[in-house]
């Protein structure tokens, strides 16, 4: 660890703390949202410094990108985008969090020495069917956790869909009149590239950083871009969206259960076909996650 590495890490940690403080206490909500997006990008850098490129990709796509867009969209509906800042409100939570931080540091440094599960994972890699250890753990060794995660995502999408009210947008007609040629051209150029990038991330997940969540997040960003740029959706898109949202969890569940036919346990893939089964599940998951995350943003609007 050279002096530059240490200096960079310290700078990263200090900027993360400073950004988090400003997000929580700044009076202007727009500034808080923009700093939150920057915080997501700096966290992604921190993940890279911790040698976790898969998590860094997911953090940049979902934490910084999609969550930032959700916040900005919510900000547009808020009338008064300022908040009051009294002293107690600022410093009491800060002091409590700092105290919790110190307690966690004390407990973690007192834990017994443990080399972790890395050796166990590396020894079983040839049985998993893929060469990327993160994908192997996510979809093979701990596939049950991923199955439940996708179930949670499906529940979140169901909740959002059921709470969504039909909004009569008076400004909609004005927005259509102002349809920007640059935005249309830009989204037409970028959206296919984003789909290509997500396909690459999905395929590369088997041997390099990538995988279903990252590919789904990039695909979701392309769908959100199309919705923002008032792209007229085809007529069949609403039915397809509803089925795609459920398809990921359903296909994962069916594949997990199908392995029980020949007497194996749930999610115990046969070793020779584990690679193809994992890729099949990942494809379904990526498409499903993309539609779920895009549905959290807004629904398809018929704007002709």
């Amino acid at each position, binding site marked *: 660890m050279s002096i530059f590495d240490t200096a960079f890490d310290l700078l990263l940690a200090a900027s993360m703390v400073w950004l988090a403080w400003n997000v929580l206490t700044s009076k202007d909500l727009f500034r808080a949202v923009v700093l939150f997006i920057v915080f997501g990008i700096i966290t992604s850098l921190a993940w890279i410094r911790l040698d976790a490129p898969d998590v860094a990709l997911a953090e940049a796509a979902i934490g910084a990108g999609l969550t930032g867009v959700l916040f900005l969209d919510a900000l547009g509906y808020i009338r008064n985008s300022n908040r009051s800042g009294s002293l107690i409100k600022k410093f009491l939570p800060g002091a409590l969090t700092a105290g919790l931080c110190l307690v966690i540091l004390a407990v973690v440094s007192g834990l017994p020495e443990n080399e972790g599960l890395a050796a166990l994972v590396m020894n079983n890699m040839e049985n998993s069917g893929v060469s990327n250890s993160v994908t192997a753990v996510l979809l093979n060794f701990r596939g049950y956790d991923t199955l439940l995660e996708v179930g949670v995502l499906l529940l979140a999408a169901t909740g959002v869909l059921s709470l969504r009210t039909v909004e009569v947008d008076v400004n909609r007609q004005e927005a259509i009149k*102002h349809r*920007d040629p*640059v*935005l249309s051209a*830009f989204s037409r*150029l*970028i959206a296919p*590239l984003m789909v290509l990038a997500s396909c690459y991330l999905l395929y590369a997940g088997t041997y390099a950083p990538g995988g279903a969540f990252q590919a789904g997040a990039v695909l979701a960003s392309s769908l959100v871009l199309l919705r923002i740029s008032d792209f007229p959706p085809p007529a069949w898109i609403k039915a397809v969206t509803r089925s795609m949202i459920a398809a990921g969890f359903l296909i994962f569940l069916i594949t997990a259960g199908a392995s029980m036919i020949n007497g194996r346990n749930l999610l115990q893939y046969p070793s020779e076909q584990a690679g193809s089964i994992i890729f099949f599940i990942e494809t379904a998951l990526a498409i499903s996650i993309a539609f779920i995350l895009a549905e959290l943003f807004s629904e398809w609007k018929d704007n002709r």
Partner: protein
Amino acid sequence: MHIIELISGLLIISGGFFFFAGTIGLLRFPDVYTRLHALTKADNLGLGLTIAGLLLATDTLTYAIKLMLIWAIVLLTGASICYLTASAALRSKVLPWRKQ
């Protein structure tokens, strides 16, 4: 090989200088339009010089093409976002700063 590393380092450092100048412009310029101007300078030239420096340090043609694609896509995105932000600001009646 040593001279190529030197040139690569110089290119990356000059790219960093443009990013620094863009950040100072973002912090010190008086209104949206001038700040956008500073930011897009940092985007195009700073990133271009950084990628030129990195191109000298790559091993395979694949990496070189990927780096140039990254620069092209960032150029496209930066230019579009700059135009959209400025036009949205104009529609919200943000007046350009005039020297008093």
